């Protein structure tokens, strides 16, 4: 196929642009520094992931210990019935839905868009669900805490630090989880919105 004058002009134009474009780019060698940082960041990600798993395992262990120690007291069974399924579901989600995050980076744009959209939607759903579940646990804990305080009022009056430490820790953990999931869900929402704006461009193409 022979080229017309317009094709030749277009090729010359592209060659000029390529020459100019490929003249850009610094000569600094970032590679070793980038890899060192990536290794450090990768370790941080692993630690953060391990912390989440350990937190779930810790609360599971505490539940089992309380069940054994109270010889299956009703209030402990109710609490464990709320906490244990949540932990199980969270760990399942952790080891399945999020496993391929980085592998998706090596996919073509269309696949990447689909995978990212699914990841953002799943994570948002999980954050909302985790907050609702934590709120439910908090609501269930209040009457239990009042009942425990009432039953052991003499001991807690003698040693009030036990009440502050025990109930304070529970309040802090629950409030922390609710606040974290709220902030995270909002961030994911903003990211999903911005992603959809850019993706709309990609999908309209050509």
């Amino acid at each position: 196929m022979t080229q017309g004058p317009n094709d030749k002009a277009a090729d010359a134009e592209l060659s000029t642009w390529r020459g100019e474009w490929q003249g850009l780019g610094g000569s600094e060698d970032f590679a070793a520094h980038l890899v060192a940082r990536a290794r450090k960041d990768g370790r941080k990600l692993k630690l953060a992931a391990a912390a989440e798993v350990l937190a779930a395992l810790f609360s599971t262990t505490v539940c089992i210990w309380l069940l054994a120690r109270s010889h299956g007291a009703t209030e402990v069974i109710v609490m464990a019935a709320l906490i244990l399924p949540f932990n199980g579901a969270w760990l399942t989600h952790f080891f399945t839905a999020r496993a391929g995050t980085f592998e998706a980076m090596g996919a073509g744009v269309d696949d990447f868009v689909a995978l990212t959209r699914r990841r953002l939607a799943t994570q948002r759903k999980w954050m909302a669900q985790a907050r609702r579940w934590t709120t439910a646990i908090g609501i269930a804990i209040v009457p239990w805490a009042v009942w425990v305080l009432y039953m052991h009022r003499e001991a807690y009056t003698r040693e009030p630090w036990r009440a502050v430490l025990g109930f304070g820790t529970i309040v802090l953990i629950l409030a922390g989880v609710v606040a974290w999931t709220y902030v995270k869900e909002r961030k994911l929402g903003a990211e999903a919105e911005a992603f959809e704006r850019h993706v709309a461009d990609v999908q309209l193409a050509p």
Partner: protein
Amino acid sequence: MSSGTPRARTDDAQVTRILRENARPLERLVAAYARSDADRADLRQEVALALWSALGAFRGDCSERTFLLRIAHNRALSFIAKRGRPVDDLDDHADRVVATTGKNPAVVYERKERENRLLAAVRALPIPHRQVITLLLEGLSHHEIADVLGTTENNIAVRANRARAAMRVLIEEGASS
């Protein structure tokens, strides 16, 4: 936590080599998506982390360069989505990275001006066109671009034509302003 954890053990030497061999194309790609020095450093690092984490899953179904470019384009898309909107700070990148081969200051200045216009035009393109034009300017064929972006050659051909038409207008606008 929005990120998963790396699965396979990654060979640091291999990642370093890939990044070193593709340093300049990667730097240009980063400049096409991020304007400020800080944003470029962040994006560069995110690409390196994504490569470091994903390389364990690389099965050699494409070249390392294609794999890196895919990662870089995907990461850039996530990056600009996380930032919400482009940062409209001063464009000083081309001034820093421009190659100054000419001895005559007037020639150097003219060359720098043209490269500034080219980079500004690339940045002004919508993302689907920017993706194609950055790869086209790197010298990739339509087939290779389709491989990087995971789409068809026909789609790339149409996008490339539109991107080039838009580039012409943007460069002329830059020259006349």
